[in-house]
């Protein structure tokens, strides 16, 4: 070995300190600005990309859609006037309303009978009188009441007690739906939730109304005089349809480029699988490295990789990058790439430990890092070059992905040199101390 060897290991504590302070800075500044920004992929919600006419800016869109408290962000070249409008699922979304109301009712009126909701919401074409709707419902033991926007024929149809008390009720959801479809041309069945409740004694209606209002639902009394049955109900409107309608109302010539609408189930499913994926990769790689090298190398590589991924996530929080599926893909790529880099050095260390038996491990590591240094820098530089091209030109769908990758690769290059090998050595020292 004629080359000059750089004593990398001497600086390892400086490196540890640097990593730690970087992490602290990211987390602290991330926390100040609201923490990690999980995208609609993971929390559910809508994302609309739309092109507007000249003169529209983020503020105007935000104002027009104030009811949905959206995040609005301009993308692409300025002359395109393209914006991303994101609204995340809120806690009081339709998906959670039913459970919340039921919970509150149970807490307040423990002995109350709560039935399964089986009312039907319909939107009839044109103007249809309530009496007319009810006239067609004879024989189905159902009653219709007008709800919502007075200009529209929106009805809730619910179960009524049959006139002949001994007879079984003829009401079923399916029957009513089929009935409405066949009787009223162009009738639409709407989505909604209903919670029928029957009290055995008079209740404070104001309190019930308050409960309904708390969750943006409505309340109506259903049973006859002397009965205390009520129905809580809420129409569930597809928010993205409403946002689109509002955009059309407020701006001329809006062109919707793309829409995404993700339910909460998908969000939690994706969250779980993203986590699972990362754990599975760690396990698989540890096993592979332990098999190809030795366990101590695995430890070094995994610590370095975790270091990179954790710092990258922290960086997302710091830079306000929305964590979506592409960003998770970027994290996993950093994962693989960082190990790749580390392996090249480990490969050299292993080779040198077999050739040079007289030199200390520290020197072998130092010289191995030194000789692979030009390769590490060169490769990282070239890969960064292509990722940088992606970041610059890849367009909206890819720029966050590229940015995370860019950061992760730079960090990966550094951790390969300053984290992986030192940790490997420290682990060995620790093991020796435990053994002796």
């Amino acid at each position, binding site marked *: 070995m004629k080359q000059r060897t750089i004593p990398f290991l001497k600086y390892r504590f400086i490196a540890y300190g640097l990593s730690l302070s970087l992490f602290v800075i990211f987390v602290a500044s991330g926390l100040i600005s609201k923490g990690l920004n999980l995208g609609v992929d993971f929390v559910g919600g809508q994302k609309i990309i739309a092109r507007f006419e000249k003169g529209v800016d983020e503020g105007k869109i935000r104002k027009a859609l104030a009811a949905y408290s959206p995040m609005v962000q301009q993308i692409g070249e300025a002359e395109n006037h393209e914006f991303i409008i994101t609204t995340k699922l809120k806690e009081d979304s339709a998906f959670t309303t039913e459970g919340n109301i039921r919970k509150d009712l149970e807490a307040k009126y423990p002995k109350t009978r709560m039935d399964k909701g089986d009312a039907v919401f319909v939107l009839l074409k044109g103007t249809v009188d309530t009496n007319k709707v009810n006239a067609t419902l004879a024989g189905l033991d159902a009653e219709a009441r007008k709800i919502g926007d007075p200009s529209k024929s929106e009805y809730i149809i619910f179960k009524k007690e049959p006139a002949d008390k001994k007879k079984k009720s003829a009401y079923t959801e399916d029957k009513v739906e089929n009935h409405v479809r066949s009787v009223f041309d162009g009738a639409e069945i709407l989505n909604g939730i209903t919670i029928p409740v029957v009290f055995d004694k008079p209740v404070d209606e104001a309190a019930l109304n308050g409960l309904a209002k708390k969750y943006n639902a409505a309340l109506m009394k259903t049973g006859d005089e002397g009965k205390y049955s009520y129905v809580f109900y809420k129409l569930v409107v597809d928010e993205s349809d409403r946002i689109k309608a509002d955009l059309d109302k407020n701006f001329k010539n809006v062109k919707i480029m793309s829409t995404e609408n993700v339910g909460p189930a998908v969000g939690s499913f994706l969250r779980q699988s993203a986590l699972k994926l990362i754990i599975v990769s760690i396990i698989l790689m540890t096993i*592979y490295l332990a098999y190809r090298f030795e366990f101590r190398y695995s430890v070094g590589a995994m610590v370095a990789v975790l270091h990179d991924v954790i710092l990258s996530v922290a960086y997302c929080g710091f830079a306000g990058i929305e964590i979506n599926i592409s960003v998770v*893909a970027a994290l996993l790529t950093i994962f693989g790439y960082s190990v*790749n880099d580390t392996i090249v050095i480990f490969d050299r260390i292993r080779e040198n430990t077999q050739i040079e038996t007289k030199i200390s491990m520290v020197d072998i590591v130092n010289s191995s890092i030194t000789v692979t240094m030009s390769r590490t820098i060169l490769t990282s530089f070239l890969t960064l070059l292509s990722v940088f091209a992606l970041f610059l030109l*890849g367009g909206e769908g890819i720029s966050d992905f590229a940015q995370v990758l860019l950061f992760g690769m730079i960090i990966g290059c550094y951790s390969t040199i300053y984290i992986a090998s030192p940790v490997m050595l420290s682990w060995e020292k620790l093991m020796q101390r435990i053994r002796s």
Partner: protein
Amino acid sequence: MTRGMIYKLIFILLLIAFAIVLILPTVGENTMQVSMNGDATAEQYEAVKKKFPSGAYIVTQKGAELTITGRNLNDAVMNDVRTFPGVRTSVIRKHWAEDLVMAKKINLGLDLQGGMHLVLQADFAKIESKSVDKKKLTEKEKSELTQQALELIRNRIDKFGVAEPSIRPRGNEAIEIQLPGVKDPRAVKKAIGTTGQVEYRLVDDEYTAKAGEWLRRNYKEKALPEEPEKQDKLLADITEGIQLPNNREVLYHWERQKDSKKIIPQYPIVLMREVAIAGTDINKAWIGNDEYGGLAVHFTTTAEGATKFADVTAKKNWGKKLAIVIDDKVRSAPRLNVQITSGSAMINGNFTYEEVNTLTRIIKEGALPVDLNIIEERTVGPSLGQDSIEAGVKAAILGFIGILVFMAMYYRLAGVIAGVGLVLNAIFQMAILSWLGFTLTLPGIAGIILTAGMAVDANVLIYERMKEELANGKSVRMAVSMGFDRAFWAIFDGNLTTLISAFVLAQFGTGPIKGFAVTLTIGLIVSMFVALYITRFVYELISLNKKIKRLSI
């Protein structure tokens, strides 16, 4: 050159030629045939022609057929054109390379060509809460119900005329639908949500026999066609061939395959056009047994239905068959042999439990076997897709040029060789994508660009090793050989770990990311092949020259 090396050279050249042919349908020009209706107006022709400006496309007209040649013709464009007024249908013609080597145009993800992506979640909780004993459904039952719902949805989407739809189960409880080029999600959502059409119509045995006879004489294929368009065409041919009177209609009798669980057309069957009993005439349906103990669907009719039923099953029709038609597919045609006036009857016919179950559900409410809720919906407009492709291609070109220039400056001739390898790498990657029918997404393009960076890594590792060996005073030949040998394990181990993450990513399953994992995987494997096999071969050729004392590296 040894004989072995000549073979190697021929092999490599053939491989490159093959790969280039494979990517022709993707990067070359394609031709789309648009058939207009006979009564299409001049404006309607103009509207289609306007969609394909003459700078980028060549449009020729011959009668009611428009032929459009150009790049950027994909399924989404084809589906979009089909929605134009006056257009009967549109088909993208196969590229000559497709017939030659099974090449295929690379499937573009919806993010690149535009379209609609839906995930429907089956609502099993509703079934469970409605069942008598509140029994939980087993995973197998869930998967079967989902499969049946998927079939029904497929039928409805087929009717919608969307080409190349992708309808797949996601796990046991959800269905994933991808429809390229569909712009109006409402129409599709409605088609999925509407209840199925069930009707009961009398069978004409005489014409059914004629249709069968005609088919035997004129249709030589073993099985009936699978593509909806061809199926319709064949029905039209039969109708013409047997001169079917206007009050009759020929449809297929469909049966469920035991192995694939798909329903496929079995034989043509001629029905009266008049609907004997409509689905709404049926009141109730339930699963029971017939007199032989087989499974049967029992049902009762409404009062009006009972009259109709008594009429259809009257003595004059005994011996005839009554076809049960679901969404224009004949699924069962029991023979009538007794008049039913009571308004209650049953259908039997060697059914499996699932079939009886589906039939019951369909008869009962003409509905899907399980309610489906849309839990995820993504639509991408075609222009955004086009922008993404352009952005991706631009980024790729910039990335490639950057790497090439740098490598040429740093490594001189060796750098140029690596650059050629990089180009080959991209060609092979595309070729494999098109050959294996993978889908290219925007993150997939990112994967290609990223692997370009990683692919040079192999070259860098090898070259650095060679430099070291040369510095240690080895001969050129030795340096080349040792450079490749010693770098091998570092390259292999390094790529394998990245492959592990790519493999794990592929399990993630959602479209775009899967595209990334796929291009990353293919790119890594291909880059190893190019660096360790083709580049090495080039260096073997160079070091054949014994006089060479210096390597340009």
